[in-house]
């Protein structure tokens, strides 16, 4: 809470008149820290304070984002009424008018351009209920195949890697509580200290208990400082580094032969491939000295227990999926999975990054982590929804590809819920151009985001303080976010918005929900028997038990803390190892004379995603008022860029201007820009549209750029 210092107005300080407490959950990262908002009324003024609440995941901790989350929720720029764009200006209209517009335009578009001309774009910040309902709305009310969501840009690589390797994707194969007791930890491309600060004590405890921590990151971060060994690789060379580690582990015979024999397919091929590589070439590709690679491999191989964690550094690459799989190869060959204190964790970025990917927002997926192209799965969901299986559309395309479909005029109408692709997508300019091309574009949002600005119609939706629902956190724990703060103005919850739209489209029967809990009841049934089985979970249980880790197939089941103890989820029960080539199939940007530096992107502690919420929060904005370019002083001097001055950064795709920030700790061939800002600071204007062929993840983390001082150009 921000309080002014008082020197002169002490006598005017008033006693608190009343105090109210609201239970809630932080709206930001995947830790989903439980907290309480305390509202105090003093005469006409209200002050707010947020405190942490004990729970199994964050244990009552909060970071700076959670402490100040209410600031955006109470911000005066919150959208409170439906807004229609008339002659380029937004004007307030009633909900009925808004819904009429939707009906009229949605019907027209589907009549003129076909069923699939309408697309739906969802979000991993939605509750499970809303994610589920949005998928149902797209498939059963709109009957379009085009639905995908921003989680595509977040977890798709890790999800596809886990699916292919283990046959099932739950971000963490173990619960967080096992971390303190493992002996060796690899943190690959994850800056948890800034992105999920409240997870840190698990790793600190591990370290206190003697664990050896290896961090893989091109930058020195608050996370790498925790590590005993920091492999500061060139951006985008994770797969090659993992090959180096594997080669040493296999050649030094740290493999678990029995485990491989009984539970793994594909080991011999991988072995043959890594044997053909030389450590010299890996050192050359990654920029990590052989001695360090060796040390890491031996440390990890030698220890009885070990865990590997990945995040966007490895995953947001055009070979993100295979690079993660290569790290999983290490776990499999050393047998460090499916037993105590051994396993894998994809540290999901978004609040409901886990849950939102399980219930049918993804282009190829149906609720319960079912596949849209599986006959049996289709039939089951069709029966739950009370429709004919044949009516269910097929597989659509990924988030970025939907934008391309707009350019190709295959999609002409769009409904976006809780997402800001103008800032979060690569090749951001093309997103802006696409959205402008649409016949009709509706956005549901808290604020007039960079994306909402381009909409024809904006629907005001509710915030975390107001919107009740379940969220599945980083460890796969389903939690109930209580929310009872009244909505401001005419704001509606996302699920209400979906139901209202369905109503005007004549589908009210299947969307007649009056509470989030009612939707959850249907979700339970829809997920039943699927991989992500929530059937045994109820609101009542969640309130009583403080969260349940799925799968939880029946009411008597206490949830599943550790996966794969007996077998993996492929039909034969085995995990699959696969060769990960040193070089990505979809070539990554390389430095050239024209673009001599590699740009990588990431978060800062005080902001979240595209910053639509956190930039509105006074205390969070106070900590980072703008974006910046982290650059090594040697590199900066080479390009004549003084500290704290504006720099123009250019790539093949576009150009941005941010202020320089010298840092001794970054690689000299690499620069870093955080991604929480839009417009002229939108770093995704620079990122190319190349996608991972496995999971359609864009290659956010490597872009070849050139830099120049803005001042220089002006003077010339």
């Amino acid at each position, binding site marked *: 809470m*921000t309080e*002014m*210092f*008082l*020197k*002169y*107005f*002490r*006598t005017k300080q008033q006693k608190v008149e009343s105090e109210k407490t609201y239970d809630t959950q932080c709206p930001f990262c995947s830790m989903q820290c439980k907290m309480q908002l305390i509202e105090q009324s003093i005469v006409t*003024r209200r002050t707010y304070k947020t405190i942490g609440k004990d729970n199994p995941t964050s244990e009552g*901790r*909060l*970071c*700076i984002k959670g*402490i100040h989350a209410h*600031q955006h929720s109470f*911000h*005066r720029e919150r959208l409170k009424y439906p807004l229609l764009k008339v002659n380029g200006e937004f004007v307030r209209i009633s909900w009925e008018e808004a819904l009429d517009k939707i009906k009229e335009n949605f019907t027209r578009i589907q009549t003129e351009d076909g069923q699939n001309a309408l697309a739906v774009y969802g979000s991993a910040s939605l509750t499970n209920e809303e994610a589920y309902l949005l998928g149902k709305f797209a498939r059963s009310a709109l009957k379009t195949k085009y639905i995908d969501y921003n989680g595509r840009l977040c977890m798709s690589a890790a999800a596809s890697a886990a699916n292919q390797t283990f046959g099932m994707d739950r971000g963490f194969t173990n619960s967080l509580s096992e971390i303190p007791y493992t002996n060796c930890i690899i943190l690959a491309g994850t800056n948890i*200290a800034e992105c999920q*600060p*409240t997870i*840190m*004590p698990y790793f*600190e405890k591990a370290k206190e208990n003697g664990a*050896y921590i290896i961090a893989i990151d091109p930058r020195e971060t*608050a996370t790498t*400082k*925790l590590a*005993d*060994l*920091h492999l500061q690789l060139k951006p985008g060379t994770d797969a090659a580094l993992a090959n180096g580690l594997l080669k040493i582990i296999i050649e030094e015979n740290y493999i678990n032969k029995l485990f491989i024999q009984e539970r793994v397919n594909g080991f011999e091929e991988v072995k043959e491939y890594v044997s053909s590589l030389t450590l010299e070439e890996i050192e050359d590709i990654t920029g990590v000295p052989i*001695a*360090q690679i060796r*040390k890491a491999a031996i440390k990890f191989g030698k220890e009885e227990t070990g865990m590997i964690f990945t995040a966007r550094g490895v995953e947001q690459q055009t070979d993100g999926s295979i690079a993660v799989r290569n790290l999983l190869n290490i776990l499999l060959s050393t047998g460090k999975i499916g037993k105590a204190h051994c396993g894998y964790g994809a540290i999901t970025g978004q609040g409901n990054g886990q849950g939102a990917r399980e219930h049918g927002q993804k282009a190829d997926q149906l609720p319960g982590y079912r596949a849209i192209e599986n006959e049996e799965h289709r039939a089951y969901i069709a029966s739950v929804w009370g429709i004919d299986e044949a009516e269910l559309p097929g597989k659509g395309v990924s988030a970025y590809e939907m934008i391309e479909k707009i350019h190709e005029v295959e999609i002409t109408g769009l409904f976006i819920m809780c997402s800001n692709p103008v800032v979060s997508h690569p090749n951001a300019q093309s997103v802006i151009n696409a959205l402008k091309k649409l016949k009709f574009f509706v956005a549901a949002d808290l604020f007039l985001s960079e994306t909402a600005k381009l909409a024809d119609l904006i629907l005001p939706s509710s915030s975390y303080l107001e919107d009740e629902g379940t969220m599945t956190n980083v460890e796969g724990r389903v939690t109930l976010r209580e929310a009872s703060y009244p909505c401001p103005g005419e704001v509606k919850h996302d699920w209400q918005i979906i139901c209202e739209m369905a109503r005007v489209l004549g589908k009210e029967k299947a969307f007649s929900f009056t509470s989030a809990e009612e939707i959850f009841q249907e979700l339970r049934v829809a997920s039943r028997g699927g991989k992500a089985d929530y059937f045994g979970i109820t609101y009542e249980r969640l309130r009583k038990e403080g969260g349940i880790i799925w799968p939880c197939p029946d009411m008597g089941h206490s949830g599943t803390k550790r996966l794969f103890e007996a077998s993996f989820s492929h039909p034969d029960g085995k995990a699959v190892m696969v060769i990960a080539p040193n070089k990505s199939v979809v070539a990554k940007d390389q430095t050239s004379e024209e673009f001599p530096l590699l740009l990588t992107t990431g978060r800062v*502690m005080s902001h979240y995603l595209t910053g639509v919420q956190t930039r509105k929060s*006074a*205390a969070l*904005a*106070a*900590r980072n*008022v*703008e974006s910046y370019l982290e650059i090594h002083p040697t590199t900066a001097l080479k390009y004549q860029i003084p500290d*704290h001055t*504006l720099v123009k950064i250019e790539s093949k795709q576009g150009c941005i*201007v941010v*202020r320089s920030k010298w840092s*001794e700790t970054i690689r000299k061939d690499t620069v870093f820009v955080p991604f929480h800002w839009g*417009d*002229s600071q939108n770093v995704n204007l620079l990122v190319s549209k190349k996608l991972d062929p496995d999971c359609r993840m864009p290659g956010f983390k490597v872009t070849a750029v050139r830099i120049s001082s*803005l*001042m220089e150009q*002006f003077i010339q």
Partner: protein
Amino acid sequence: MAKQKLILIGNGMAGIRCLEEILKLNPDRFDITVIGSEPHPNYNRILLSTVLQGRTSLADITLNSREWYNQHHIKLFLGEMVLKIDTDNQILLTDKLRVVSYDQLILATGSTPFMLPIPGVDKEGVISFRTIEDCQIMIETAKKYKKAVVIGGGLLGLEAARGLLNLSMDVKVVHLFSCLMERQLDQTAAKMLQTELERQGMLFLLEKETAEILGDGRVEGLRFKDGTEIEANLIIMAAGVRPNVQLAKDSGIETKRGILVNDFLETSIPNIYAVGECVEHRGIVYGLVKPLYEQGRVLAKRICGIASKGYEGSVLSTQLKISGVEVFSAGRFEETPDSKAIKIYDEIAGVYKKMVFKDDKIIGAVMFGDTSERGKLLEMILKQQDLQDIEKVAIFPTSIVESHTITSLANSELICNCNGVTKGAIIEAVQKKGLSSVEQVKICTKASGSCGGCKPMIEELLSYINSYDFSEVIEKTSFCSCTSLSEDEVVQKIQQLGLTSLSKVMDVLHWNTKQGCTKCRPALSYYLAMINPEYENIQETLFLNDRMNATLQQDGTYLVIPQMYGGMTKSEQLRKIADVSDKYGIVDIAITSEQRIHLMGIKEGDLAGVWADLNMPMSSTYGNKVQTIKTCIGEHICRCDKQSSLHLSASLEKRLEFLTTPYRVKMGVSSCLHDGASCTTKDIGVIGMERGWEIYVGGSSGRKVRGGELLCIAASDKEAFEMVTGFVQYYRETANYLERTWEWIERLTLVHIREVLFDFELLRQLLDRLEEELSLRKRFYEKSELSTFKGL
């Protein structure tokens, strides 16, 4: 239950620290008696050398004053020796024939300097370096004699020698070995140290063994085993110390070199403990303060019946307290066949660093010339950290790299980013509340309460605070010598008690002077005016209202400045100024750097006429107000459009003119990134950029030039206007009198100021209060307009 009787024999640092720990744990459990042979309360023996070097006074090194003993109801017998302990009956006898019984007894008898058993050692002028008395003898001797010899080239000897140099004596140091401080330094560091001390004026006689002290009653010189002789008027024996074990031995307690204790500081006899330099623990006798304090903590727990791990011995680390010499040593620094070392030896910079590793773990280090990383290193040695090659090198930052050690951080810098806790706030909490663990710091300040990433930094900070290098004091300072209240307290009392005049403040708050002093008078006037806008602030300006004001010049005439917002004027205004100048014979007319025309040399009698004839707004920026804003009109470096910046600065000037501020506020507004108005060195600077107005704050163009920091980027003119005026108002409301903006920013932190200004509601409050004051002033102008200026 009756209190247990606890007796401490020895009134030195180790024993008293142990008592302090006991009092912290359980203040009411014991009836405490202290018996000390020295006639002083407990003082910091380690700082004796700084007394000798003239850096500290005797009073400053007292650790526990008599009040402290009284406060805790501790019986103190000074200058008294215990002769015998009857361990069976638990009583003891002193040389004053006092018999005291005890339930628990702590021996902290310390050690005695070792006097070489050579002929002549009892001559006058042969002393040790252990007590305040020794220091006094040295100081007295230096007044009469010139030649001093120190026997012993260890830590203590060298510090004594440096002190004697400061007393203008010629100093020779005699040492048995070929290297100085051979127990702490390797050969390279020792030679560097010798060179540096020789440069400072010491002479060394190495590998010399003293055979005899010469002289007739008073010392005149000494002879070495090799037959050579030197002259001396004063000899300091610094050849080591011997634990005082006699009393223990006589009382049947087991001793070897020291009094034998186990890990809980228990001696061989029940209910008798020993702590400090007199103790031998696992074969080691410690002579440095840190281990003794560690023992004290363990013993306190033991005596209070609180479970602990016990004392497991200490890693020794030493630092030489001689100004201009940076030496540090810790752990095992010798190179052995099974250890490896990294060394950096920069002869040019005079820097030498060595770290010793065994099995990839750091076990010791020696540093000379630059010891800024010592805290970090010591911690790594204590934790036996496993090190990667790269990190080893990183530990030795080159001299160019700005060091980020905890010691070099400013008090305003954030330690805990999550909860926004500064280094200063932690130090303050530690000092005020006596915190000693990260956990306590967390509870008290919230630092490390969220992600815990700053835990290592807090640990480092804590060990720094507890070290003897620590000298940053954050304590209450009184407003001025007229009162013991702090500035904040005075301001608070003025409001609470509704004080409205200088005399009332001084009277009610019991000023110890009648008239106050040059420090408090102007400050009080300022505060009175801030609290009560009606309060008439006596200044050197003549200020009736916005059209009638002037500044008194040294020669008794007045200066009048017609207002020209943004430095812009019109021909009409200039014509009027010219006419008035002609009419009143004003010949000194200056165009100033403030972008105003100054009419100088106006006689007091002419003022009313000048004002009436000019009949225009005047500028008055004399004193602590917002100064006229520097704009960048007429610069040649660029052709960017200047209109918007002129508009912004004019509106800011209108809003902020005549406002009293804690200190002069200089501002600049530039229209483009060429920054023609040098905005980055102003208290507030606004630069027009493509994205909006970049607002810089806390710059200074005074003798110490400081670059401003970016406060924010305002997207519109309106936002820039509100940010700047809100900033000024918050500064007015919270800064101390005469506190510069940059000092204020450092105290409150830029992040906090942003938090307030970015918060719509809080900014609104600031702007409203500014508005309120302006309307008050307007009414005041109207009033003074009516009652025309008759006096002149």
